[in-house]
């Protein structure tokens, strides 16, 4: 019997603490598989955020930091700049990256730091029990938007992939999802491309992954996937938002 799908060496054997049906686990597996399949694990350093995936340092089978809330891109900058041969990635949730850590992610991308960010967007704060996040949808209920997100007061959800794509500095930015097998397969391709670009030392790479949060959305895993598809995806459109070859620094070289 030939094994055609096996437990990846990219992850430790430790069972995760994630809730049933939470797709953090799928995203972890994709990153672990890619790092292992590209033969990078031996020189990879991952950086866990504060949030549901804080314990990622137990799950990825490579050297791991745990960073303070929102600061993983700065930790990654320190690591990658001083040991450029390392493959460095930050794994961050939407509270960590899009709220407290917004300055860090914008400036890391703008400096063109050569690491990879896996940004898990599940439109809520998970670990702390379901508060509103910058990515929470209009009208979406959370423990701090009990009547549903009121955009007149809390503003509209932030589309980080698009936001970072407006920066001139070259980067590879794509948004994917993992709520169906087909989407998961395409998500892995995007994550592989990101790590390949990093291995080439080409540019900053950023993959935003739409993810479910059954517990704090108050839905079953199956309903969560439907909600993600029907409510999140029309707003957080999938696809490549920026490629390094799109770089247009022409204005600086007298071309405009």
């Amino acid at each position, binding site marked *: 019997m030939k094994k055609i799908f096996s437990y990846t060496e990219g992850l430790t054997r430790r069972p995760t603490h994630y809730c049933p049906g939470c797709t953090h686990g799928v995203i972890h597996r994709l990153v672990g598989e890619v790092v292992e399949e590209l033969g990078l694990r031996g020189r990879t*350093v991952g950086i866990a955020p504060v949030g549901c995936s804080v*314990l990622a340092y137990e799950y990825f089978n490579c050297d*791991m930091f745990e960073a303070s809330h929102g600061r993983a891109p700065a930790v990654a*900058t*320190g690591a990658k700049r001083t040991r450029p041969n390392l493959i460095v990635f930050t794994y961050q949730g939407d509270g960590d990256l899009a709220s407290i850590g917004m300055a860090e992610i914008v400036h890391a991308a703008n400096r063109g730091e050569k690491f990879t960010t896996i940004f898990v967007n599940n439109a809520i704060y998970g670990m702390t029990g379901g508060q509103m996040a910058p990515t929470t949808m209009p009208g979406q209920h959370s423990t701090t938007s009990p009547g549903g997100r009121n955009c007149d007061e809390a503003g509209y959800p932030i589309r980080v992939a698009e936001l970072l794509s407006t920066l001139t500095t070259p980067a590879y930015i794509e948004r994917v999802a993992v709520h169906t097998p087909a989407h998961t397969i395409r998500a892995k391709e995007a994550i592989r491309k990101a790590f390949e670009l990093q291995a080439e030392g080409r540019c900053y790479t950023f993959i935003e992954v739409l993810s479910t949060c059954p517990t704090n959305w108050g839905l079953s895993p199956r309903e969560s996937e439907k909600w993600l598809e029907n409510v999140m995806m029309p707003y957080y459109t999938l696809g490549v938002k920026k490629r390094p070859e799109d770089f247009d620094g022409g204005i600086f070289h007298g071309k405009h």
Partner: protein
Amino acid sequence: MAKVLMKGNEAIGEAAIRAGCVHFFGYPITPQSEVPEYLAKRLPEVGGRFVQAESEVAASNMIYGAAGVGMRVLTTSSSPGISLMAEALSYIAACELPVVLVNIMRAGPGLGGILPSQGDYLQATKGTAHGDFDLIVLAPDSVQEAVRLVISAFELAEKYRNPVMVIGDGMIGQMMEPVEFPDEVKGPPLDPGDWALTGCAGREKRIINSLYLDPDFADRHNRKLKAKFERIREAEQRWEAYNCDGPCDLLVVSFGMMSRICKTAIEELKAEGFKIGLFRPITLKPYPYEALRKAADKAKRIISIEMNMGQMIEDVKLAALGTKPIDFFGMAGGLVPSPDDVVAALRDSLKKAGAGGKAR
């Protein structure tokens, strides 16, 4: 190596390079910006990395990343910037990482002023950030000593795998003084030992983390950190006792630039026959309590002279434990007491001490 006339901030940058540190992450803030400016030019010459971060919050987490992968690293800032670095310092201490940071103090609180002050003493030695942890804090009184202490800061940081702060008031950073540097880079490169994240090829993966969900482990870890600081306390206390050999009318306790101004005042009054000693702590942490107590025992009265509203005086009281009356003289807001200001304050204390100098 010949003496060169150099601005304190630049000397601090060069000292780091001579200590084998070629990576810097920092942010502009007066009165320390010449350090990043100097290193932005110098580090590429020595194959190092210079990054201007988007904030001190980011800079402090960048040094966490650099130290975590086993590289020598420096950051410098001034008072408000150090406040922004607090959280990361707690993480760095908890994860036992060797980093050196320099605080060139400016007047506070709030945005404060850009003139020199010693208003961050308690922040550095007592209340740096959340949780039980201890910085090693070194306070130079000259540009030359700043160079020496920056170099030993790297040695201490690596010896104990602990953050070390070199703290000086604005003048230490801004004034120019002749200074000498060691020729060659001191010591071997940082040994990543069995803790640094250098990639798990050929070994078990490593984790640098300060999340402790298990309280038993957390308690043991806190005790381990405290035991480490006890070793530091026993081995690394440094001070200067000036004119403190015999009994004296008054013992002045002062650190950094302020203590040099006190020496001038003491010399002046010495000529009038007054016996005044000066105790200068060089390690603000671990504070030299025992040594200060010995000096205090020989004095009728003590006065703590600082460029703040009275912070180190708390440690002076701890050292004396009520055995001697303690006065305080200080200026804040960026004012620097002149020798005459100090002489006047010393005369008050001498009067209270009932000390009569030679008839004038």
